[in-house]
């Protein structure tokens, strides 16, 4: 909005998150897949909680899912969100199983509901492509 607006946080390209951010840069949504038992997981973790294997690879998912839970944030925890409150934070359950904290764009507040079908879009923020979601036809 104004020129003095405080920037929003940008995810750090940590070794754990880098493959996710690289995929997003290329327009793909990626999650971890256990190299031993194949279980998908997100956010990235060192080991598989099912088989304890450290073998891991990244795999693209469809980017489709539905809103599983959400809240509307009215508190300002970070100055970058002063102009945004109140804003919804959603948990999206991907068609492939894992859940992901995110935001839904292009969706008026009254249309946002649990069960809303959504698909991934990527929002540019200081050189990072941030995966968000928008409503889609079921």
């Amino acid at each position: 909005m104004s020129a003095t607006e405080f920037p929003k946080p940008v995810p750090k390209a940590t070794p754990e998150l880098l493959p996710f951010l690289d995929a997003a840069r290329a327009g793909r949504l990626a999650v971890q897949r256990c190299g031993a038992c194949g279980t998908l997981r997100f956010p990235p973790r060192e080991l598989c909680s099912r088989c304890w294997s450290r073998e891991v690879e990244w795999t693209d998912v469809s980017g489709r899912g539905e809103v599983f839970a959400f809240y509307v944030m009215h508190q300002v925890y970070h100055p970058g969100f002063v102009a945004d409150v109140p804003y919804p934070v959603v948990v999206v359950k991907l068609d492939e199983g894992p859940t992901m904290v995110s935001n839904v764009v292009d969706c008026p507040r009254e249309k946002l509901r649990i069960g809303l079908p959504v698909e991934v879009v990527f929002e540019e923020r200081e050189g990072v492509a941030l995966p968000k979601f928008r409503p889609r036809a079921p």
Partner: protein
Amino acid sequence: MERRAAQAAITGLGITEQGKVYGPSAVGFAVDAIRLALDDAGLEAKDLDGLLVNPGLSWGQAAQMGSFAVQQAMGLRDLRLSAAMNLGGATAGAMVMQAVLAIEAGLANHVACVFSDAPLKPPKPRDGSGGGSGSSGAYAFAGGLEAAYGAFGVNGLYALLASRHMHRFGTTHDHLGAIAVAERAWAQHNPRAQFHGKTLTLAEYHASRWVAEPFHLLDCCLVSNGGLAVIVSRGDRARSLAKPPVWVRGMGQGHPGGDPLETLASGAPLAARDAFAMAGATLADVDFCELYDCYTFTVLVTLEDYGFCAKGEGGPFVADGRIGPGGALPVNTGGGQLSSFYMWGMTPIGEAVIQVRGEGGGRQVAKHDLGLVSGNGGVLSTHTTLLLGREPR
């Protein structure tokens, strides 16, 4: 289940001033609370041989070896049991449980268990512009992915659970509000409560500002400076002290793991199984409940998980005033953490001690042979059950 003869009871209760109380550090509040608990029991510092400490958020470096910090601050010598513990809001119950286990094993006689915190700072002379609360915590993980989406704090994590409970079971704001109103009504009889003298109607609940929708401000617990300690004593020594012993009749822990968004359930069923088996009791024997209430929603889920009603029926269960003063099931009789003070799991334990002893004054429940006390930490991550009663097992 065969039980050892020793048994254990809570013999001392110490509650410092609570709320916007400035001056003492967190460690200082812990010392004050233990001193009050010793006085209450008629014990002296030299009688203590065990010290269990749950450091609150403001302890900083002292949290690392919190029990040693308190030992040194009090000049305690020759302890046989010492630990700082942290399972979030379930810690208090776990400390009492640890004390009982040590006592029953012959490894301690009098164990002090304490929680304290001092997160509130005095108001600044000049009126600041009122920025966001909790920002220091948020900045610590501002580089993470969730922060990029504006997802901060615990309010939101519980609000997600509540949103799913509302979606799956039709739980409403009237249901959550009924819990806030009931606890506030209890607090009117508790002179220590931060909301003593401030009544609440359901309409006022609805009008309170949003924090993380579906949570209003009045769905969320208070923040308090202060300390709360109990002394757990070996049974044979408990009988000769200043106050009637509050016996630990049953105890258990349950930490379910997995994703609570999928289950909408706490560890209460697992913790309750051990606790009720040990006590030889059933839900029908419970005269009152002191349930961990970081949010109204936590109370609703906990009532379901103990089986007072079926999963999903917590809303209608609380809607008719059942848990308030004069209701069939007294819950959080001191006002809980929503309306009295926020000493994590020590708030419900302290109130249960008061009720079992019959010291509740205007809020005393008529029948107080057995109280059910829950602790809950993280996001329905950890859970403890204590059954406290007037008679030993």
